């Protein structure tokens, strides 16, 4: 069914329900932003007794927040990189060849993100301790990359499918080896898909808490830091400020990725 003009007006009740749900979905985040400025330590009393920006200064001083933030950034960047490489390789293999077990690859790639996080988490944790690998940045990255491959894979595969293969053949016909063809022809055509996939992987990794709890050992990513603060009522506004960072670290990359794939999404939806 393509787009068509609404035939009748929706009832007031329906519209009210829609607005209510939208408010329900969006208001909670505004609360976080509001309580980053409250003067009160426990930070939930409404209305807030006063507003201040002092907490930003306090947060700035906190070495543990900086450590957690920098770890999260490093992990997210490495995860995005690993996911980009693995996802592109898998997409290229699946797109070009008819081989036995083609659907299996798609299934395998989507499995880590489809299974509940605790399963992935505990499975990797027992494997890590079994192999005697010490917990470090790399164990966190391994955990994240496993379920981030799928976002890159999907994006790149979709882009491959939209590009005419004759261009690759034309390039090879004109004397370019597959490596040169990749550099001059394929890479430019999947560039935005790579960027979008990489940013989605970054966002997924930055926000991740469940699998990370299992694969991080003693280290604290920013979500883990917030998680540990959840039941501590002291200096809540500082936690709020850390939360703001996490919101930014997930929201902005996803927004950018959405913008990049916008044309295709709209076209796809319009064609329904």
């Amino acid at each position: 069914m393509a787009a068509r003009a609404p035939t009748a007006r929706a009832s007031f009740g329906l519209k009210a329900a829609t607005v209510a749900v939208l408010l329900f979905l969006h208001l909670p985040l505004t609360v976080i932003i509001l309580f980053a400025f409250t003067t009160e330590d426990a930070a939930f009393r409404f209305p807030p007794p006063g507003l201040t920006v002092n907490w930003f200064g306090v947060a700035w001083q906190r070495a543990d927040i900086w450590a957690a933030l920098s770890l999260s950034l490093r992990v997210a960047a490495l995860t995005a990189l690993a996911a980009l490489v693995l996802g592109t390789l898998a997409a290229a293999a699946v797109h070009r060849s008819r081989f036995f077990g083609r659907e299996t690859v798609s299934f395998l790639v989507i499995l880590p993100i489809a299974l509940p996080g605790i399963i992935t988490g505990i499975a990797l944790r027992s494997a890590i301790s079994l192999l005697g690998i010490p917990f470090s940045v790399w164990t966190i990255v391994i955990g994240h990359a496993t379920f981030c491959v799928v976002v890159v894979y999907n994006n790149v595969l979709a882009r491959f499918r939209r590009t005419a293969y004759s261009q690759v053949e034309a390039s090879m016909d004109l004397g370019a080896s597959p490596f040169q063809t990749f550099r001059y022809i394929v890479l430019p055509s999947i560039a935005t898909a790579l960027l979008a996939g990489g940013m989605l992987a970054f966002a997924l990794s930055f926000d991740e808490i469940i699998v990370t709890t299992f694969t991080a050992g003693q280290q604290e990513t920013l979500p883990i830091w917030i998680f540990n603060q959840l039941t501590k009522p002291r200096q809540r506004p500082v936690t709020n400020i850390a939360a703001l960072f996490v919101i930014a670290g997930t929201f902005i990359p996803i927004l950018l990725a959405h913008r990049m794939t916008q044309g295709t999404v709209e076209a796809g939806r319009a064609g329904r």
Partner: protein
Amino acid sequence: MASGVTRPGAEPARERASTSAVRFSHVSRAFGDVQAVDDVSLDIDDGEFFSLLGPSGSGKTTCLRLIAGFDHPTSGTIELHGVEVSGVPPYERDVNTVFQDYALFPHMTVGENIAYGLMIKRVPGAEREVRGREMLELVRLPGMADRRPAQLSGGQRQRVALARALINRPRVLLLDEPLGALDLKLRQQMQVELKAIQRAVGITFIYVTHDQEEALTMSDRLAVMNSGRIEQVGTPADVYEHPATGFVAGFVGVSNLVSGETARALTGLPATFTIRPEKILIREPGASVTDGMCWADGRVRDVVYLGAHTRYWVELDAGGELVITQQNVESTSMDVLAARDRRVRLVWHRLHNRPVETTG
């Protein structure tokens, strides 16, 4: 020039002075159960304009891809200028292709597209520019170097694709139905231009098409393919005047296929033959017939006026039907359409009957 029956797949004996540019030796390509190319043997000479003609699914594009290196034969060998190329990738073969969808690189300008092959070979920028401009002149698109493919019309894109291929001075150029997407007038114009370019540049053109008129117009020689096999190879005149099989007779131009009882009634023998519609003359019933002519009486079942000529369908008394084409030299549409239901006598030279293999 040998006339008469030619076996499908074999060429009439001729002088083989020039070297072979492309040689297929018993090449087959199967996709699972389907034989896309079935035991094809072919010799294409250096410098000739050679067409592969056939309907969809006849295997002609597959043959092209085998020459270019995008596909491997399941059996048989392919030689390019005497060298076997089975393990040689497309980027190492001295062959270039003009693709059916042109396959221009959308993120590069026309100039960059054309010079791509040179850029890969590390030809310096100044020389690339000079040769690029030469090519644009050759395909009659001067000054378009900075445009992008998206800004060009179909015919212009087709010429850029041609220039991009020719700039590398390949010894063989493959063209995969390059004019299919163009309208009739443009197509006819491009046919003339392509032929002129080929003569100017002097390299071997291998041209794939399903349009028999196109193949007849442009080729030095052509091969008619059907279901992966070669039905006939020869010059356009050969193939048109002396079709080897019923398929060739029916596919290349319009033809009448006469067999069985009708054949016996007309020629005295039940052997199958074809006769071209334009070779048959329409006379009044009872017209005299000289020696060496065939004749048949019948009734005009239908008439179609085609401007320059008219097509008649005549039901024969002896059974069966014949199609006749006549030029409208003196008659008008009124005259010819009045011929419906008239009784006529058809007369033609016995020599124009071409025997064919019954399996065609």
